């Protein structure tokens, strides 16, 4: 065991190590907190912040999450909850892409829209929040729209993309960029009490089939809006799918769409 490993082992109790001790390790061995987190996980010692992840996730799983890079495209309703949950889960690198700033009509459902964040960049606010939750996470905010011209470049060095956009053409461009970059895409969208989730791997073409008959760029949400409860449910399902992909477990919603109706509490799977 190397010197840093010995220090971590010495400070750990019952397979756990406190954040304060990880900071001490980082200081003593001149490494970043992020590197100290990683070193602990490599030794099978769980940072205490993840104590309640244990059993559901092994330290090997937690290390895999730490080493993972996930892109979240769109940081409004879905994106805010997705970023929050990815950070709490322990995904080590999160890239947040959104061109917009918060406005008053975001307050009904967007996690990072507060009275104080109105007018501020959604991506920057989300990144700030992640740093507050866990400074060991590498987070990047990009205040831009992902499109045909920059899509593949923006997805560089990420291994899963999570679709949290609010328009259909943007989603199809994202799917194309994922196909070219060769990474899976977890799609989610919402409208009123309803929402849908699916996972597509390069070449599946499920999202393209799903929106093949849409002539408009928006769906039912144009008339019935978006509710916080639907947004949070769909975001949670997307993070579960993205997390499993990172962990090398099979995604549950490949080649199928899960359609959710929260008014009737009806969950319907449509096989493609």
């Amino acid at each position: 065991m190397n010197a840093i490993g010995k220090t971590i082992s010495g400070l750990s109790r019952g397979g756990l190590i406190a954040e304060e001790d990880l900071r001490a390790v980082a200081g003593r061995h001149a490494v970043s907190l992020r590197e100290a987190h990683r070193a602990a996980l490599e030794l099978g010692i769980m940072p205490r912040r993840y104590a309640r992840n244990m059993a559901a996730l092994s330290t090997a799983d937690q290390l895999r999450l730490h080493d993972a890079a996930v892109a979240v495209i769109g940081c409004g309703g879905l994106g805010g909850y997705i970023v929050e949950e990815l950070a709490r889960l322990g995904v080590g690198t999160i890239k947040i892409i959104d061109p917009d700033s918060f406005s008053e009509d975001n307050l009904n459902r967007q996690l990072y829209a507060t009275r104080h964040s109105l007018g501020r960049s959604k991506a920057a606010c989300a990144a700030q929040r992640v740093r507050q939750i866990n400074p060991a996470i590498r987070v990047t905010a990009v205040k831009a729209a992902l499109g045909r011209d920059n899509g593949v470049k923006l997805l560089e060095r990420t291994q899963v993309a999570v679709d949290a956009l609010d328009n259909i053409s943007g989603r199809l461009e994202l799917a194309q960029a994922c196909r070219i970059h060769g990474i899976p895409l977890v799609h989610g969208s919402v409208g009123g009490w309803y929402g849908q989730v699916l996972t597509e791997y390069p070449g599946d073409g499920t999202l393209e089939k799903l929106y093949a008959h849409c002539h408009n760029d928006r769906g039912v949400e144009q008339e019935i809006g978006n509710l916080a409860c639907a947004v949070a449910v769909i975001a949670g399902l997307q993070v579960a799918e993205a997390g499993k992909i990172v962990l090398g477990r099979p995604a549950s919603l490949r080649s199928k769409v899960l359609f959710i109706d929260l008014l009737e509490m009806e969950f319907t799977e449509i096989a493609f």
Partner: protein
Amino acid sequence: MPPIKVTVKLFASLQAGRFKIQDLVFEAGTTVAELIASLDIPEKEVSLIMINGRHKELDHRLAEAETCALFPPVGGG
């Protein structure tokens, strides 16, 4: 050819002014596009067609006792 009975299930906003689930009778060979037209639903308001649990296209010809579920496009974030 005798007429066929199809269970039609409408999801989300497609239910407004119509129904949630109903058994309807059609001529044999009726397509999903014709079923949608008979319900006065503009085609662009249907994003997903599910026949007996599987995704199908507008040109699918309905058969006796099939369940046809229609979903509107959902695109918000």
